[in-house]
């Protein structure tokens, strides 16, 4: 009887060890994923910063005027089209 209990005890102890080890491994993985999340957040921030910077109206207008040679039509060249709704 005692021997059986001893074996059970040893079994329990070993399973504790493995689950503990497992938990730690999972935790390391979790930390890595969290790191990854932070890295993505950082990248998102940088990309939206870049988007805002490239998309600033001042820059868009400069390119439109200087590179693409676009210009506003004078009132005489504007035709207003009525839409029937």
């Amino acid at each position, binding site marked *: 009887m005692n021997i059986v209990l001893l074996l059970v005890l040893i079994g329990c102890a070993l399973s504790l060890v493995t689950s503990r080890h497992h938990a*730690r491994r999972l935790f390391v993985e979790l930390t890595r994923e969290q790191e990854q999340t932070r890295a993505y*957040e950082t990248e998102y921030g940088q990309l939206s*910063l870049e988007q805002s*910077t490239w998309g600033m109206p001042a820059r868009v207008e400069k390119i439109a005027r200087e590179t693409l040679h676009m210009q506003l039509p004078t009132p005489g060249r504007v035709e207003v089209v009525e839409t029937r709704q």
Partner: protein
Amino acid sequence: MTGVIARRARVAPIPVPEMLSRPRALALFGALAVLFVVLLGRSVYLQWLENDFLQGQGAARFSRAMEIPAHRGRIVDRFGDALAISTPVKSLWAFPDQLQASPQEMAQLARMLDTTPQKLNARLKADEDFAFLARQIPPETAARVMALRIKGLNEQNEYRRYYPGGEVTAHIVGFTGDQDKGQEGMELSQQAWLGGAPGSRRVIINRRGDVVEDVAAIRAPRAGRDLALAIDSRLQYLAFRELKAAVAAQKAKAGGLVILDVRSGEILALANVPTYNPNSRNKIARDAMRNRALTDTFEPGSTMKPFTIATALEAGVVKPDTIIHTEAGALTIGPNTIHDAHPAGPLTVEQVIQKSSNVGAAKIALTMPATKLWTLFSDAGFGTPPATGFPGEVSGRLRPAKSWKPIEQATMSYGHGLSVNLVQLARAYTVFATDGELKPVTLLKTDGPVAGRPVVKPETAREVRHMLELATLPGGTAPKAQVPGYRVGGKTGTARKNENGVYERKYVASFVGMAPMSDPRLIVAVMIDEPSNGDYYGGNVAGPVFSNVMGAALRMLGVPTDAPVNNVVLPPPGDDVKEET
């Protein structure tokens, strides 16, 4: 004695261990007992009395409280484009006496940081305790530097705030100072909303310093929230560009421009010149930082006249076609005389606005008790801060009616003797842009129309609106404010500046207007401070700015036209109506 010996000798020669004498045994036992008690005492001491200290010491060797940094919220415009954003950066620091870097390493370090070894050494010598070798550098650069594995060189995480809008949105957004705390503008007033609270958690680390187990969260981090402003980046840029060009062309000291959405009370654009770049703040003049449209006041001049007329219409003392004799351009009240420099004979009430007659406005104002004027001015928001949520906004000055002398009542009718800020003035015009309601204004994005507070009767608002449209047509003071394709209306202001109680030969030219007149959607208020390129009339200096900004803004917002595109009619040269100052 002999007997005993004899008996022993007889029994056996077995060697008997010598018995300890009783006192010795006792002494020994005592000593052992004392040692045992000491041992026991020590263990009790360690287990109970010193337990906390030792547990703490043990924990200190493998358990760490780790700071979890919290992100500051972004500030975005009404479409979600970033106007202020925090990105992680690194700073490199060292205790100078612990930094062990060979000259080669220093040279390498300097090359990576775009500096010279001399400069780095100077920094290290400047302070013996602690020195930053590089502040707020990109994480990639820091990673390459740390890969050199220089002993004693440490890195720390920080956030840096970037403002993609730069000088265009500087005054509204403001900026953060040390520790990522708001210091100016919306960054300051919305600190509680934007700022995150860093969290902290307890972890177990192994010998190499890697985290192996999360023990407990001490404090969960709270990330800052994003803040959506009412600002429309496109209109903001437009307003800034036009204002900057006008201030330069007029050789003016400063200028301000506000675009207001009539229905929602949102401030779609708010531009100030001079401005500054919040991304490189070390060389900013304090003066350029002020958001003049909200924190500075000026005497509005003729832009107040519509409120005087509205009071008279409400009180029933005049109708739009009542004839006012303008006394050949001079009205004497006690020792003072009010002048119209361009006398025009008898004018209707409509023409008083259209031609901006001071005498006309004063005569109308003097037919009413001062409290009536004061009540309407006050209801239209003069003398109270515009409550946009901007730090440091001012209320302007509107003295109680009791203290008005007759001459003051006359001058207030055309906007002297009281002061306003530009946003307040734009907000007051919502009374005429709607059917008599004053709308609350805000810098924050809202959902759809807001209810206003009725100030005048709908008929009164419509009548004044018509007068405002007349002012922009030939025969009015501001034909240059016209916009192709849209009917517009507004009022010019040309005010002498009052410095230390004396009216100087310095002017503030302004124009506040709305469009399209069939159903006003936008109010644009322009103010040019000290134009000094020859012309100082509101209609000529601020009117064209209004026209450019309003026209482009209406097109951008896709507001349907309410006039043919060839509607702009300018009076023949030399025939323009000069406003009274």
